[in-house]
């Protein structure tokens, strides 16, 4: 088991009234691709943030085991070094910091964790150029400031590009498809598909079936009010597309009332 989330409860830090995750369970084996869908406000982004170790949220109950370790004992940078990667819903701009410096620092931090030697400027450049082509990024990507002046699509692609560079064990895509046109979405999906392997797992958080049509997840979960209320295979995507969340939500409430 790569990721084992048990009865996870989380709230906005220092605000008990804002309980968001209310006993969430999720098990992911190495090599699996899981989609998480759900209406607005269900807690999808909170789940991504809590897994990545964002301090805005406080875990009040439950556990997260990752690759045999208790993830809740580890801070965000070490989670990243151990192979947890989050592609952001809104990738952040860092003015004046080149992608080259940012990514080289990042890649070397992770290589250090793996006991690999640091890449110097030339090796890094070579390594990065391959992936730039793979992701169809602009050639001058490394010279530009991190995400500054990037279009929405470019920012998302830049995150997937980083994912390709860092070769994580668990990739979490937090609504990476939001705001992408069809071509950009294909590029993102191709990027994800090219990274799929027996050792690497994915959590794809999304509102829409379209990205999933390209990625074809092994499992689909419906997240509602801080819990996973239904789990199925790829066919669940189309069921949701046709009927929306209402039926599933009503069925869940009916069961809860029994």
């Amino acid at each position, binding site marked *: 088991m790569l990721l084992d989330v048990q009865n996870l409860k989380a709230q906005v830090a220092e605000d008990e009234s804002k309980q968001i995750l209310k006993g969430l369970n999720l098990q992911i084996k190495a090599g699996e691709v899981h989609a998480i869908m759900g209406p607005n406000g269900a807690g999808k982004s909170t789940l991504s943030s809590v897994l990545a170790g964002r301090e805005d949220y406080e875990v009040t109950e439950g556990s997260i085991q990752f690759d045999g370790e208790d993830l809740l004992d580890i801070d*965000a940078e070490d989670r990243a070094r151990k192979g947890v990667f989050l592609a952001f819903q809104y990738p952040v701009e860092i003015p004046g910091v080149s992608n080259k410096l940012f990514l080289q620092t*990042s890649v070397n931090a992770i290589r250090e964790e793996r006991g690999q030697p640091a890449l110097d400027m030339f090796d890094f450049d070579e390594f990065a150029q391959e992936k730039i082509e793979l992701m169809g990024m602009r050639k001058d990507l490394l010279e530009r400031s991190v995400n500054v002046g990037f279009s929405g699509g470019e920012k998302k692609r830049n995150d997937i590009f980083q994912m390709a560079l860092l070769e994580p064990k668990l990739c979490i895509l937090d609504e990476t498809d939001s705001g992408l046109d069809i071509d950009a979405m294909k590029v993102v999906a191709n990027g994800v598909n090219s990274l799929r392997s027996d050792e690497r797992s994915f959590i794809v958080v999304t509102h829409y079936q379209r990205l999933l049509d390209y990625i074809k997840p092994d499992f689909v979960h419906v997240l509602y009010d801080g819990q996973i209320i239904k789990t199925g295979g790829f066919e669940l995507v189309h069921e949701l597309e046709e009927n929306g969340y209402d039926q599933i939500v009503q069925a869940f409430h009916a069961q809860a009332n029994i």
Partner: protein
Amino acid sequence: MSGPTQYQEIDDLIGSKSSYKEGFITTTDVETFARGLNEEVVRAISAKKNEPQWMLDFRLKAYHHWLTMKEPHWAHLEYQPLDYQDYSYYSAPECSACDTATPEEKAAEISEQDDEIAKTFAALGVPVVGNDDENTNIAVDAIFDSVSVSTTKRADLEALGIIFCSFSEAVQEHPELVQKYLGTVVPYHDNFFATLNSAVASDGTFVYIPENVRCPIELSTYFRINEAKTGQFERTILIAEKGSYVSYLEGCSAPARDAYQLHAAVVEVVVHEKAEVKYSTVQNWYPGDENSEGGILNFVTKRGICEGDYAKLSWTQAETGSAITWKYPTCILKGDYSIGEFYSVALTNQRQQADTGTKMIHIGKNTSSTIISKGLSAGKSQNTYRGLVKILPSADNARNFTQCDSMLIGDKCGAHTFPYIEVENATAKMEHEATTSRIGEDQLFYCKQRGISEQDAISMIVNGFCKDVFKELPLEFAQEAEELLAISLEGSVG
């Protein structure tokens, strides 16, 4: 006047202030005047330097005027009025044998003293005579307390007619030039601290670039305050004749001492027609400890005049040190089409206070100025930008662009901006942009999610923020400035 004293080794003191690497003390015999300031002291300084009458007259005129002035407290800074009688106004590495010994003995003793000081500068990474590398592309004047101890590369420069020496030497050897320019840009009665400097000026640097000469190497002065309870009052004069060019850089540091040390310098720059001067400062005076004990009070008057048409003066500064900074490098744009620039990074941490910015005074036609100021506040510090752009009636078509960005690191610090704009000519074009941001939690998390440690992330984000200014610094100093920022920010978050 006190006799020679021995510096104390205070290793543990330095140990407790490990983040300030330059905080060590040099042990050497020194001659330090007794604390206090009166006319006798002013005369004694002048006599010590064997100065001509006109220089003494200048000092005395300033001293008597100073007595009528009040210490200014209008800046956004908090400090108790200083006791000027509690400072010593002259300190120099001493040669006790100088008066009586034979020339051989004298030479031996000087070389022994020089060794200690040379070691100090070597530890600071400053080349001085004897340890300078033939291949370095920089000439350095090293100033230790009140005197200049070494000026390198002098012969190379002399061949081009460039004068690069200590201020004291210039008074002796180029009196006509010093007399011509001293007090012309910053008059002796200009302000409280400039007047004090005029009275007790210790040493400083004198630079003269002849007509149509491009100075091929960087000129640099390294200021070191060593003695406790001593003031340093350098006077720097830089003259660029018609069509000449020079890039000048000053660096500063001081040992960690637990009482305020006063630094009141005056810099005068004169840029003639079509000449260009780049004046860069990397200031890392001791900032005091966490409880704001000690540190340098950096009360400096820097001013340059673009005397001729098409003259250009750039001030670039990276200010990370000092307990309190009070300085406003100024460009007086007198020549038509002259250009003034000010690029500044001012970082305050712990309980440091800075009130700094620039003044651009447009007099000539078609003059233009650019101000880019990046203020960073961390810890419990207060960081103020104060700037004046003044367009006089004669300055047709003057232009100014000002960009003032402040970044807050943590939530106990403050950033303040006081831009003054006075326009007396309707053809002026003014642009002003100002932003204040908190170092983004989002940015930090983004970096950490990519495996980058918090400290590296902060340093990266901050250096990115300052990039527009650092790219104006000579290459090797840009690197130094980046490293300084990283050191100064250690432990500023979490």
